[in-house]
């Protein structure tokens, strides 16, 4: 029972981080229709930027803020240089450009920071675990979860109450109508990429705090794909629920199934689940089912 509860809490907390990254993914898809396979590399860039500033002696929150700013700039640059020219191109073209981007970013990250595992030194969060009765949770997890939830709330408020956020919602809903009332679609696309970079960067930084930072954190960024498939590609609440569900599932598989397999279940389970889930409910829990006509 204790194991169950502990796995559950850890899963929810890691899932919060996934939810944050998944939110960035859904945003890009909703606003510009681009299916982004470079999400893992976006998490890497943000994580390494904040790590470099942190190891230079900048306080953690400030380092995070700097990585947010750099993520914002990179996001706008990426959209303007690569994605802007592809508006109206077939889906495969856009997907493959994001694949190309992911290789490009990955190569650059490896060139600059090399592939060794790096840790946040000194540790950002205190090492002694937190206790709620019988349940023991690492402080890293708890604080990461709290940070992820705060950011999620900020992003959701941004969409609901600010002018830019409403413009993005309008574009996602109906691009033509949005254009006709004077919203600049190009601006919205750039903003979506910028926000995705920022969300992924924070997600990467938090993940890097848990186990140290190396290229495999980019693989964790790929886990957003099962999350968004579960929630539905164009649903923000779906992304959050999907992220948390994938986090929980991953930890349960790690805790309970690992003894029956030689290993690697934890990494594979979300993808196996995704493949089976797609067979039965390809549009996810809350995604829109588009009816096709010839």
């Amino acid at each position, binding site marked *: 029972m204790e194991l169950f509860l502990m796995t559950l809490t850890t899963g929810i907390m890691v899932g919060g981080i996934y939810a944050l990254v998944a939110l960035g993914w859904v945003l890009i898809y909703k606003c510009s229709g681009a299916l982004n396979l470079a999400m893992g590399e976006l998490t890497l860039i943000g994580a390494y930027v904040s790590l470099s500033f942190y190891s230079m002696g900048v306080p953690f929150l400030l380092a995070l803020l700097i990585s947010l700013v750099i993520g914002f700039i990179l996001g706008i640059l990426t959209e303007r240089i690569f994605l802007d020219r592809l508006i109206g191109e077939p889906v495969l073209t856009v*997907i493959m450009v994001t694949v190309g981007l992911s*290789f490009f970013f990955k*190569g650059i990250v490896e060139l600059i920071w090399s592939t060794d595992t790096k840790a946040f030194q000194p540790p950002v969060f205190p090492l002694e675990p937190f206790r709620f009765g019988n349940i023991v949770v690492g402080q890293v997890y708890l604080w990461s979860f709290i940070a992820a939830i705060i950011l999620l709330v900020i992003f959701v408020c941004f969409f609901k109450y600010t002018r830019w956020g409403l413009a993005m919602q309008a574009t996602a809903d109906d691009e033509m109508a949005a254009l006709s009332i004077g919203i600049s679609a190009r601006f919205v696309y750039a903003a979506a990429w910028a926000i995705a970079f920022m969300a992924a960067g924070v997600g990467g930084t938090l993940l890097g705090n848990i186990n140290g930072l190396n290229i495999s954190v980019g693989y964790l960024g790929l886990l957003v794909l099962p999350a968004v498939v579960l929630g539905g590609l164009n649903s923000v609440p779906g992304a959050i629920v999907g992220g948390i569900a994938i986090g929980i599932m991953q930890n349960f598989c790690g805790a309970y199934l690992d003894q029956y397999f030689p290993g690697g279940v934890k990494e594979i389970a979300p993808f196996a689940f995704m493949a089976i889930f797609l067979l039965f409910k390809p549009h996810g829990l809350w995604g829109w089912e588009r009816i096709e006509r010839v």
Partner: protein
Amino acid sequence: MSTTFLPCGVYHENYKQDHAWWQTKFIKSKMFLLFITLFFIIPWMSDSYSLSICNQIGYTILGALGVQLLIGFCGQVTLGHAAFLAVGAYVSTLLVLEFPWPAVFIELGLAYPISIFIAAITAGLWSVLFGLPSARVKGFYLILTTMAAQFITVDFIITQYVSQIGGRGQAFSLPLGTIKVGPWAWGVIDSDIKIYYMMIVLTIICVVGVVNLLRSRVGRAWVAIRDNDISAEVMGIDIIKYKLLAFFVAGFIGGIAGAVWISNLAAISPEHFPWFWSLWLVGVILIGGVGSIHGTIFGSIFMVVVMELLQMAVMPLADTYPKLLMDFLFIKEAAFGLAICAFLIFEPNGLAYRWWQAKNYFNLWPFSY
């Protein structure tokens, strides 16, 4: 496939001429020259290093052919083709190393050819298994399923289970002389030139086979599904059957590619079939041109040769900057990513389109209007 115009003054009088593979004497002599070049001039002129590059090109063509078939002709995007290469390679390796072949088979050198065939069939069936979701989903969802195929097959099943067979740990070693084709003494595959001949023969068979398949009813059905699957279904094409058939053929060719490639490797491990390699194959056809067999070949040659040239350019600098040698892999990755982006943005039709333009220019010269 884009139409190629015939040269001025060439007419067809019956359908047989119209459907001929090589329609003019000029093309026939060109193909003869190509044959001579491939079978005699290249092996005669080149040293072991350039032969190994040729082998790499052949392997890339074989791998990319299946991807081209799925993406370019059937419209089913796959990002996990390395999984099927891996299945082919592992089945073939296991059969060669572990299967208790009767002595006759080993003496006659039949073990490896049979294992290639079985490996290809297994890879094809494995590919159909992951193609099953294509009955219900398409586009991005199918991409995710094929990605799952890569992770499940290579990172889980092969790494955790298949690699443990025989207690060897991570890698299966294939010492020189394990692989033997035919009963003759020279049938032992132990040098680049023998691999080259095997590779070239299999590549030609596969390319010709696929091109012929595309000219048939099956190929036309695939193209109809690619262009619009709903209309194809309305036209009476059993789209599920043809989609799965496309997956089978793609996996089959992938299996051949993997099984042939083991002759070039001293040891085989899951690291030979990473996700990067799946994406690399898709990149090859994007650069060569989607929906063109020429494109597959041009793309393979272009990518392998450019990466070798890049390496050659980096090597002399390595004396002064030793770090560069270590970082070459990363430079390669970044260059590959940038190349895909640049081709998709500036030359979405790929290299094959340029080739087609050049060919038509000369065919129609001097009256091109």
